[in-house]
């Protein structure tokens, strides 16, 4: 377990190495990045093998940092964070594989990339809110550079919008947390201390604090109507960054809601719960319909991410053991699958055809030109629409069960959302890959570069993870469910005991 902090240090060290080595050789930077990401993933898996599911957070590092303010360097882990740590390692490794073609300033690219990963690991491990916030910012800043420097369509606009939304979100979070800290008499920034202090707040105070903190995180999680940064940001980002953005960075927002907003301010949550649920449902259905009419391949996936994040937020809003466990499982599942979808669109298709316009792709009849990309996209699309056998299904089933327990009407609308997701996924599969067969009169088919080993490896990694978790969701559920019994979460998450 004490290995886990090394995921952060290792990623930072890797980032530094990439910067140094990348100045001489791009290949070296790539291999260093791959080795670092894989080693980080290996650490999370090793820790997972030795993990004993307990209700409370298990310390992995704890030292005084700024004693005068009660701030500690405190890292701890439970089943929820471990699930997301494993996801981070996996997504990072796959994203490096799909960034193998980055030729311009390779060293710097991977340095930013690994710094972002270090920040994400840090967020998932932090048990001190100040530390949490520091890592949160470390994760956000490199994102801006990754998009602004290596991005494509409208990159300056996309990067700026994304950065502004993220900073506005984190400002709200910071405001909420400081308010609680000061109001509670400065007990320190530890999760437990702050929760103990927050228990004495009046209901209106809790309502206000919850509103600030939740809203701040929800912006990053893509909650309707604060999601508008997401599709544009995804489209502007280079493939590897889109994968991380959808795969893990949006999860930071959802994780923040679950780890901080809910347990710290239960009375506030009680007040906001219906509003959050309705916004989540609106997001699921609205983003689904928007995805249905997009003309740009990547925008479809971008909006589909917003729709799927809606399921996660709905699971959190329903706030009972099954829906929240389903939401965490969905965080993993969406991280893997959205990553893969972006990889196919950005790396396999766009990098070779230089178009993302669905009408133009349709005319190419891609499934004959790129059977591998077509197969991977079909499988990832099926996983994304919640086909049983892939990780999305047990997650959605669990969310539906839990949500029904809280409100059958929400569950009914979520089922409508599943239908819309099937419609837009199937449409994009059909249009992008299975256009009419290319007529012989159209001249020879354009020569496309063959699929590389790195792409094949990345695809198998992500698809394999989705299938394994789809067939054996117990792997994660057995970690997640006990964590929901923790003293902090028990107050908000109903019906924990099976």
């Amino acid at each position: 377990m004490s290995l886990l902090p090394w995921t952060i240090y290792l990623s930072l060290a890797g980032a530094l190495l990439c910067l140094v080595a990348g100045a001489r050789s791009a290949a070296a930077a790539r291999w260093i990045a791959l080795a670092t990401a894989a080693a980080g993933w290996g650490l999370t898996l090793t820790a997972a093998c030795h993990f004993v599911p307990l209700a409370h957070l298990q310390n992995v590092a704890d030292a005084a940092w700024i004693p005068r303010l009660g701030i500690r360097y405190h890292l701890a882990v439970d089943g929820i964070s471990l699930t997301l740590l494993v996801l981070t390692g996996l997504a990072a490794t796959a994203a490096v594989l799909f960034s193998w073609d980055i030729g311009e300033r390779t060293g710097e690219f991977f340095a930013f990339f690994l710094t972002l990963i270090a920040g994400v690991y840090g967020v998932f491990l932090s048990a001190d809110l100040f530390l949490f916030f520091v890592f949160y910012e470390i994760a956000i800043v490199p994102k801006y550079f990754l998009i602004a420097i290596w991005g494509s369509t409208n990159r300056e606009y996309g990067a700026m919008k994304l950065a502004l939304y993220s900073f506005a979100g984190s400002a709200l979070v910071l405001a909420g947390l400081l308010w609680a800290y000061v109001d509670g008499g400065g007990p320190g920034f530890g999760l437990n201390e702050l929760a103990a202090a927050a228990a004495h707040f009046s209901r209106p105070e809790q309502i206000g604090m919850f509103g600030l903190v939740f809203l701040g995180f929800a912006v990053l999680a893509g909650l309707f109507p604060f999601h508008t940064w997401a599709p544009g940001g995804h489209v502007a980002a280079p493939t590897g960054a889109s994968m991380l953005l959808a795969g893990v960075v949006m999860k930071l927002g959802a994780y923040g809601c679950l780890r901080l907003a809910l347990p710290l301010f239960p009375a506030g949550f009680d007040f906001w719960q219906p509003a959050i649920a309705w916004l989540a449902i609106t997001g699921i259905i609205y983003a689904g319909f928007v995805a249905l009419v997009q003309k740009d391949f990547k925008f479809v996936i971008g909006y589909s991410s917003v729709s799927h994040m809606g399921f996660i937020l709905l699971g959190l809003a329903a706030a009972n053991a099954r829906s929240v466990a389903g939401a965490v499982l969905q965080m993993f599942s969406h991280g893997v699958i959205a990553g893969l979808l972006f990889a196919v669109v950005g790396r396999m298709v766009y990098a070779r055809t230089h178009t993302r316009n669905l009408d133009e792709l349709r005319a190419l009849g891609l499934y004959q030109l790129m059977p591998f990309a077509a197969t991977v996209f079909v499988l990832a699309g099926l996983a994304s629409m919640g086909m049983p056998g892939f990780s999305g299904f047990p997650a959605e089933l669990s969310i539906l069960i839990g949500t029904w327990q809280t409100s059958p009407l929400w569950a009914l609308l979520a089922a409508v959302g599943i239908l819309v997701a099937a419609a837009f996924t199937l449409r994009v599969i059909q249009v992008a890959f299975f256009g009419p067969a290319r007529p012989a009169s159209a001249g020879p088919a354009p020569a496309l570069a063959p699929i590389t080993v790195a792409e094949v490896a990345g695809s198998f990694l992500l698809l394999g993870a989705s299938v394994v978790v789809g067939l054996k969701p117990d792997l994660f559920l057995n970690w997640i469910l006990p964590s929901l019994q923790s003293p902090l979460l028990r107050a908000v998450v109903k019906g924990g005991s099976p």
Partner: protein
Amino acid sequence: MNGFPWLSLLIFAPWAGALLLALAPRLGAGASRVLALAFSASTLALGLGALRGFDRSRPGFQLVERHAWIAALNIHYHLGLDGMSLLLVLLTAIVSPLALLASWRDPRAPRFYGILFLLLQGSVLGVFLSLDFFPWFLFWELSLVPVYFLIRLWGGAGATRAAYQFVIYTIGGSAFLLLGFAAIFVATGTLDFEELARLAVDGTLASRLALLGGVWPKVVFAGIFLGLAVKVPLYPFHTWQPAAYAEAPVGVSMYLTAVLAKMGLYGFFRLLWPFFPGPLHAAAGFLLWLALAGAVLGAYAALRQTDLKRMLAYSSLNHVSYCLLALFAVARGSAAFDQVSAAAALSGALLQIFNHGLSAAALFFCVGVLESRADGRRGLDDFGGVRTAAPVFAGLCGIALFSSLGLPGLNGFVGEFLIFRGVFGIVPWAAAVGCLGLLATALFLLTFWQRVFHGPRAGAAAGPFADLGPRELATLIPLVALMFAFGLLPQLLAGLVNPLVSRWTGGLALP
């Protein structure tokens, strides 16, 4: 409990074949076809093996396999076989290799076709054998994927739209079916079919669902109903059907009507009726009208078609509606009704499920034969006098037509007769209205027979028109032979389901 895993083998043998084909990208066309056929036919051997180990005198589940799977959701890998699933397994095992044989000549990517077909076959068998919602729904949804691609990539000019429509309709239904089972899990904490049936018998399921209050118990019922009704399809959820059946390649059309439509019917008998006897009883008065509409309007719609495949699609709607007519009539009957009629209606429905599979598969194949000799045309007016050109084909197709029409001595008669006998004893007026459908069925099938096979040779049959080749004979003769076998000895099939039916009717007598 866990003996020799006949049932797992049945499901995974076709999948093993698919995997093998997928791993051999250099395999030639001929070898791919033979390999696919061998794996597809292996289920017949396994099915007969399961039949041997099956005790016909017992109504319950046999050859049961049950293993823990997902503890967090109380889910088990649970398979079992009773008379009804055995009937459907045998039907699938018989029709699948023949459907592969029917599209044998298709030159387009035979290896990929084989992979998809075997995936489909394994999924369908999984649906008929699973006794826990999780595996059942897994197979139920997975079966959609190969069908989509089989229609989309091998189908006719309108295949894109037909395939999309088919999948969206079905997934739309399944989303609400999933919701229904989520609610059932909330109410009972289990998704095991046997367990749920037990909870339904003693009223626990109904009373727990009633705790939801408001319209929600009805929503649960409606959601599951919708998921199954789209699949069957029950009127008015059938609008995807004519296009899908017409655009699919011949082997897939055979499979869609013979086996896939039966998944929905199976669901009605395995899930909806046992779990929701009360709500089904309450709704049956209305549902009877839907089944009747399917039977009568389907037949009249078939009468108006000039495309032979569309005619057969509507004819399928008409035939499967009779099965549901029987079920709804029994569900509607009061506690004091006549058990003999109920037994007749239920056995009739089960036999009809099987027999319609045989005759519809044969008829779609015959239209495929016509199409293959007329450059893809299949209009009622594109042929004439085929009988003189191809007498063997005419004879075999004629037998299939009369089987579908319900001529005594052929298999189709038994099921329909029992259904009408039973329904007449319970809801006489429904049987009377249903007869209108029988009349129209006779009309359109005889029109088919007359226009295509009789008269002077015309249309595609005006020139040279080859009679059946060896491969085509090998497809059609087994089906026709079985039509005679089960027509003359219906007890062969009825014997498998009798104990089950008597248990069902015995259960009905309870208050």
